[in-house]
């Protein structure tokens, strides 16, 4: 059996980001941080996709995490970046725990549609809530690191450093989880749920656990995005945001916990470059790449690495 190189690779990537960060231009730091935040959401979606579930409403938890972080700052002037992330994570995980009792019974298209409906409920609520800025949203306070506020030119780098640390820890944890008996149930649930039940495992419970973890990751990503971008609005819960996350999940593939972050980075680059070159056709480029990946790389970009190893 090949030794598991994922943890080492993850730590090396994390260290590389920290080392190169101070010398990279500011906009790349921003791009990278947003990619890490989205990668966290996609990491959760990947776990669900491994059991064959596609959530068209993951933006619900992304938005919840962001609003939880934003409101802590707005109402209580909390600005500690770790407190905000913890709040985002806890809020999303709690909501997912409650909704999970219902959603864990759904499969295939119905799971997707029900999660879509629930995320649109949040969107509808936020758009009409004037206290939270309706459809304009509101600005998030600049965050601090245990009460310390970095100098202006170091803000982007410190947020990136925090994001990289959190992402590496999250990826390691999920990697660990995928190796446990509960984690290994995912492909079995995708293949044949009834056989899973005959073996004595509860598919519903396994899906519920994965759903809560996925939501926690999305909430974490949302809180991170809120601190990075400095502004949040209800659009974060709209179905197009969920579509974007699924897009990245498919682009990345389910082969490894590194794939979601790579996918999110590539998505960010395609978006930035295509938008720069021709602002009116960037969606077309995205659509065409999604189509190409589905047709030619059904297991996502990560399968490119796999094939080389096997050869």
């Amino acid at each position: 059996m090949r030794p598991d190189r994922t943890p080492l690779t993850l730590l090396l990537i994390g260290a590389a980001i920290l080392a190169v960060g101070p010398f990279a231009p500011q906009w790349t730091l921003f791009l990278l941080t947003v990619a890490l935040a989205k990668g966290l959401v996609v990491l959760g979606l990947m776990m669900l996709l491994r059991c064959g579930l596609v959530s068209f409403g993951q933006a619900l938890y992304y938005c919840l995490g962001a609003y939880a972080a934003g409101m802590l700052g707005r109402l209580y002037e909390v600005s500690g970046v770790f407190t905000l992330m913890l709040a985002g994570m806890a809020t999303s995980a709690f909501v997912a725990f409650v909704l999970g009792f219902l959603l864990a019974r759904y499969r295939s298209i119905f799971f997707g549609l029900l999660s879509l409906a629930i995320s649109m409920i949040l969107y509808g609520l936020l758009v009409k809530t004037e206290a939270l800025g309706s459809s304009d949203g509101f600005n998030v306070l600049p965050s601090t690191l245990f009460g310390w506020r970095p100098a202006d030119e170091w803000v982007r780098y410190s947020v990136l450093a925090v994001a990289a640390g959190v992402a590496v820890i999250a990826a390691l944890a999920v990697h660990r989880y995928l190796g446990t008996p509960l984690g290994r149930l995912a492909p079995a649930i995708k293949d044949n749920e009834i056989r899973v039940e005959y073996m004595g495992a509860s598919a519903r419970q396994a899906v519920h656990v994965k759903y809560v973890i996925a939501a926690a990751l999305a909430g974490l990503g949302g809180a991170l995005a809120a601190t990075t971008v400095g502004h949040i609005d209800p659009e974060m819960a709209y179905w197009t945001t969920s579509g974007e996350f699924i897009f990245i999940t498919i682009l990345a593939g389910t082969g490894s916990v590194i794939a979601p972050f790579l996918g999110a980075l590539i998505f960010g680059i395609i978006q930035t470059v295509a938008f720069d070159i021709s602002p009116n056709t960037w969606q077309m480029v995205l659509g065409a790449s999604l189509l190409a990946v589905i047709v030619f790389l059904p297991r996502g970009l990560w399968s490119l690495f796999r094939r080389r190893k096997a050869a």
Partner: protein
Amino acid sequence: MDQLVAVLIDGIIYSAWLFVAAVGLTLIYGVMKIVNVTHGSFYALGAYAAASITGWALAQGMPPSLSYPVLLGSALLVTLVVAPLIERGILRFMYVKDEVVILLITYALFLILEDAIKLVWGVNPYFIAEPYGLLGSFDVMDLTYPYYNLILVGVAIVCGVGLFWMLGHTRAGKLLVAVIHDTEVSRAMGINVERMYLFTFTFGSLLAAIGGAFTAPTVSVVPGLGIEVIVLSFAVVVIGGLGSLPGAALGAVMVGLVRSATIHYLPQVELFVIYLVMAMVLAFRPRGLFSIAEARKI
């Protein structure tokens, strides 16, 4: 009392719009088992084609009363060009894939079409107010309604009744029902399922385009027009049951009335109520109100 009448009238008009916008989606799902995100693109395409062609024809001196057939004709034209292209060019190679994967493919196509529309028509809004203003308006109690809204209700009724008649009383319709029921047996009995798919996709998309074309005179036609229509039509057909025609009608009426009631009595919850209804229906009847029980496959 006045308000109740207003709620009813607004609700009926909105339901009619929803039905036309959504019924094609349920037809396509029933026959092809595709949850078709490009439905919103066809709605937008219909609106753009109608606004630009009708606007051009009016500028050439066409009498305004002719604009209604031109609206319909533009929807037909644009669908007959784009829908077969998508079905024959891309979708037909994908039918072997999973339902969810096909949904993602139509999502990719939606992204592509969204920009294609901008390339063809630009990003500036189009207005055609003539067909809307031409008919004048009528009063119910103290409220004024344009007659144009009745056209929308008429279109909805014609579409609904026409579909029922077609499915139950024509050869093509009966073959289609057979395909809906069991694709493989239909194929074994000699039905050309490929042609049925092409026909269904084009026809379903045409209904969306008609919805867009007849809405065009009442709004300004801008990029992103189809995005909201997608989730709204999802809500309508999911409430009624994916693939069920009476379900789509019921879903449209439910959503229409609920929305107009909330707009009149409690405008803060307007958007959220529609999706709440959708979530509640899915929670209690996952396959929608008009659904047939399906055996669990082993």
